């Protein structure tokens, strides 16, 4: 399942959660998912850049 679908699921869960603390946890999970995705993209881009750096071949 892609991230966007997971985020939609989390938003639904957040709406239904009765406890404030649980809603906060779901909101933070969305933030974490986005941060993970950003970090994965950055790390992949850096690996790509370093692999193609001809000075280190």
């Amino acid at each position: 399942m892609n991230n966007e679908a997971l985020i939609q699921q989390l938003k639904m869960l957040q709406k239904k959660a009765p406890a404030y603390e649980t809603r906060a946890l779901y909101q933070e999970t969305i933030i974490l998912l986005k941060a993970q995705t950003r970090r994965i993209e950055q790390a992949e881009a850096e690996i790509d850049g370093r692999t193609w750096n001809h000075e280190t071949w």
Partner: protein
Amino acid sequence: MRTLVVIAHPDYDNSGTQAFLQASAQSLSQVTWHILDQVYPDLHMDIIAERQLIQQADQIIFQFPLYWYSAPASLYAWLDQVLQTKHEETLPDFSGKILGLVVSTGTDQKQFAAGRQEQFTLSEYLRPFEGIARKVNLQYRAPLIISQFSYLSEQQKMHLLITYQQYLTLKTDHFAQRQTWLIQRLQTLVKNTEAESQLTGIIAALEANQEHLTDLTETLQMLKGEPYE
């Protein structure tokens, strides 16, 4: 990790920030909530009891509103009386323990900078606490600053709730630790929710991302010729 929260606030019961923080910490089992101004209205501390509280804790948090760029009087009374009596020649050694600060400010955090309204950073204003930590071998961690609590949006308050819980229960704010913490909290929810399968799927996705990120980090460290930690 056992955390002792030492709170200095002369008007604790009327503080919205403190009420929010107390409610945020309520579900945490290894946190001791200690309001100096209520336990010692005369600021005369029970030194033995206070030292026992310190001994039982892995992390000590000083929590207070910023008063004249420092802490309210009760925290200074605590420091004066508890850390070293006039009959003791040596300072206590709290090696292995951590000192954290949770500081609320009525001024926007952005104003604490060179050339701005408050001129100096909060790291500079709070430096004496870093010095105290160093003197008694406490490991000083970056303070958690809560500025202008009453202006926070609902989303910002929810983010603060989690950030605060993590500050009280984790030793650092490293991404890897916060990631694991959140997954563990979600796992405790799984049993108590109707959306068990949905939540299980979300946790699996988070764990897969976490693993992928660890692999990528290892590859990067290898490419850079650095040892992986």
